[in-house]
């Protein structure tokens, strides 16, 4: 049953651009995929180690700028720029991890917020490198052999591959002793230490992997919109990611993807039917309802229902 369900989902995902020809809808799906990678990345920290990063847009932005600059200025191939973007963001994650995770909790939240603020300021003011508030236009689309992935349909498959790879990475991580160490730190840090879990090592590791994934999402975003500006560091991006993870179900594998799909599609759907004020209101009401009725998120609630039946 589960297996056939998964096969159907895979088939739908693989054929989607052929029966969903509307480019606008396809655009929303691609954005949902990019946010899906971001939500997966935030979930590693928030859902598994229990640390809230409110500066996650910084890792996303670092990835976007790294990839854009490497392809524009140094004319690197996208396929090299993508891992480089993940590495640059991962390095930033390492610094933040070393710096902030000794303190943890509220301090970690504060350090991540300030870090995002600083990186955003750099992107605005370092004109020579980033072109300041004007941003970097003309980021090239990825090339694959003789093809250029400039169509939405082609880019959809690239993002789909990234979502699949990120999910697989998270799944393997969570099912390993590394993932168990993450969860142990969330559940009971001193007990985890007493059985040999090195707190600093695993928290920094989680920060690095999480930031690296976010950097990869940033690169995908840059080469999709072909434009990077300091807006990538906007706090609203971080808030959106947190909402996706919490609403979908933090600490689950499917939750962030469900949340990303819902909260990318929802604002677009609302935009089609009502004015801006009503959109915000509806969005807010839905959030309150979700928090009220499904405090642990959509996926854990569904799992509980299925177990009961």
């Amino acid at each position: 049953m589960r297996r056939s369900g998964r096969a159907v989902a895979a088939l739908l995902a693989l054929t989607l651009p052929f029966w969903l020809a509307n480019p606008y809808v396809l655009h929303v799906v691609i954005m949902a995929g990019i946010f899906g990678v971001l939500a997966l990345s935030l979930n590693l920290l928030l859902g598994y180690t229990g640390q809230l990063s409110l500066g996650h847009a910084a890792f996303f932005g670092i990835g976007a700028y790294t990839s854009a600059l490497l392809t524009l200025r140094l004319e690197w191939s996208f396929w090299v720029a993508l891992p480089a973007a993940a590495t640059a963001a991962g390095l930033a994650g390492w610094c933040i991890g070393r710096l902030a995770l000794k303190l943890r909790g509220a301090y970690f939240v504060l350090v991540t917020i300030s870090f995002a603020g600083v990186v955003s300021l750099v992107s605005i003011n370092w004109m020579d490198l980033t072109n300041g508030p004007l941003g970097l236009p003309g980021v090239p689309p990825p090339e694959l052999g003789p093809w250029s992935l400039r169509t939405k349909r082609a880019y959809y498959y690239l993002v789909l591959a990234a979502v699949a790879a990120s999910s697989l990475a998270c799944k393997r991580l969570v099912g390993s002793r590394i993932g168990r160490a993450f969860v142990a730190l969330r559940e009971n840090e001193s007990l985890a230490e007493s059985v040999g879990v090195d707190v600093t090592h695993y928290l920094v590791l989680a920060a690095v992997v999480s930031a690296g994934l976010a950097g990869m999402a940033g690169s995908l975003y840059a080469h999709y919109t072909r434009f990077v500006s300091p807006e990538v560091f906007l706090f609203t991006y971080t808030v959106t990611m947190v909402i996706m993870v919490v609403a979908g179900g933090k600490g689950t594998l499917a939750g962030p993807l469900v949340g990303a799909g819902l909260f990318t599609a929802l604002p677009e759907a609302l935009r089609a039917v009502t004015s801006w004020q009503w959109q915000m209101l509806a969005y807010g009401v839905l959030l309150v309802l979700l928090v009220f009725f499904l405090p642990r998120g959509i996926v854990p609630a569904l799992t509980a229902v299925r177990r009961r039946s």
Partner: protein
Amino acid sequence: MLAVRDVAVRFGGVAALDGVSFEVRPGTITSVIGPNGAGKTTAFNTITGYLRPTRGEVTYDGARLTGLRPSAIARRGIVRTFQRTSVFPALSVVDNVRVGLHLSGTAGLLEVLLGRRRLRDEETRLARQADEIVEFVGLRHRRAEIASELPYGEQRLVELGVALAAGPRVLLLDEPGAGMSAPEKGVVSGLIRRIRDQGATVLLVEHDMRMVMGISDTVIVLNGGRVIAEGAPAAIQAHPDVIRAYLGSASA
């Protein structure tokens, strides 16, 4: 051999430990007793790296433990439990124990991400070991239940399972029988004996004198942060200073 040498710990004006020295002979059950506030838990915290002593040191087989982090001390085979019940609340019983097996695994980040075959063998081995430990502490019927939803006595057994999973050469138990019924305490005593018989050294803090006197090879008595007596259970029970310390605290 675990050795505590001239250890002092101060909290502000309070001397929780005031020049404590003792050794724990390998392969024994050694108990630390003393009235409330005597410094027993403080001694455990110092040995396992949760507290830095203001003076003195702890060594194991001649190597200094003082200054190491708790996880590094666990890596050397010195594993403790906590006085206040301490489990991974949202995890099932068997998953609690699987976390305890952390040091028996070797998988690193790259191997995990690449999904190496060797890993699957390791995971199978760890799962089997976890089941054996769950069985050993007598919680097989609770295997898949969430730890925080178990009755108190069984949560204490989960803790014991987590600590055992870490493969202790020296196991420090802080009041494992507290709040348990008499039959449950009997079960714990039996487990402690079996752990010792399998080659581990047990350092036990416990208020239940029947349990202490029944299973200990050596008893160390702390009072006011100092060792006031040390010896075989029978000798300790007859020791005038010990009797005075306990009567004093009972009448207070």
